[in-house]
């Protein structure tokens, strides 16, 4: 592991680093873990933003002036269901992944 890092770091002549050092800011494909996906009933939504606050992955966006007011980024959603459990209006449902409900 150390050799691998040295190879990587030797391109940068300015810095001399020994040992493993993280040099890239990346993201894993956590969206592929999902078994259930959140689905919002937009008519009942009161746009309180609690789902965006409690989401551990921070991928919920509230768009107050649009009809589809809650937008999820499904590239990273792990499908844990905390948003559906914490919604005060219970207007988020967890539906099985790849179902057309």
């Amino acid at each position, binding site marked *: 592991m150390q050799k691998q890092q040295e190879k990587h770091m030797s391109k940068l002549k300015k810095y001399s680093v020994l040992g493993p050092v993280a*040099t890239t800011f990346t993201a894993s494909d956590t969206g592929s873990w999902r078994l259930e996906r959140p689905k919002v009933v937009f008519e009942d939504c009161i746009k309180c933003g609690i789902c965006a606050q409690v989401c551990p992955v*921070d991928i919920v966006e509230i768009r107050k002036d649009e009809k589809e007011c809650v937008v999820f980024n499904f590239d990273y959603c792990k499908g844990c269901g905390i948003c559906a459990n914490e919604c005060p209006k219970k207007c988020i449902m967890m539906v099985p992944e790849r179902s057309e409900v």
Partner: protein
Amino acid sequence: MYDIQHESKGLVSHGVNACAGCGLELIARNTMEVLGENTIVVIPPGCGSLFSGYGAGAAMKLPGFQGNLENTAACAAGIRAALNAKGDKETTVLAFAGDGGTVDIGLQSLSGVMERRDKVLYICYDNEAYMNTGIQGSSSTPYQASTTTTPTGKPTERKSLMEIAIAHDIPYAATASIHNLRDFRRKVQKAKDTNGPSLIHIQTPCPTGWRYDPARSVELARLAVQTGAWILYEYENGKIKVNMKLKNLKSIEEYIKPQRRFRHLSQEDIEELQETVKKNYQRIMDRLEYMEGTV
């Protein structure tokens, strides 16, 4: 030098390999958002090191490194000393360790930092066992909880980190919970502004180790506070403040029923546990009220 390959809203990447429903991820995101870019992070091995980097990739836009389990606080104190020597008083030094790295293995270095009055912000995310290595019991595991090293339930009560911190008389110490994030963020801000060591002890529901449905993480954190299994209070410059005083505690059954680490308990055991939790809550409350009145 730092290669950004991913667009994220805050300072933490969206694709972190923490389990679905992990309370730690929520804590890390909120902490980094409050502390901002001018921060150096020390994280010991454990679930928290998912954020500091694995191989060449990291999940935070902040400088930091992974120390050893037993010297997180000592590393942070060293960074603080170096920053002080350079005349930098603004940068926050954050030590972000789990319960094993704090109350078991790292206790001596934490005690040293608290005694020397180094300006370090220490956050202990308490998931109540060594979760990253396969759910071994720690000294922060609650009474009767089953882990792989205590399969029939832990026979003793947990260690109280807050009371250890209060015994050192540090400027700021607080407990927090993920069900009230606004309160947690206020506490992080306060700890950041403290001139001296500050400690935040936050309970972190862990779906893998506590064995419950990931959707109930925040709900269980709330139930822990409402049943008296976790008490929210802060200690600031010798003054105690209880954040949430409860008149009637909820039945402990509501808290332990969804968790399969408590499923070996019989009805009698549950009653005994209820008695223990109530007694413990009363003991701490009495002590806190005594301190509130006298100091």
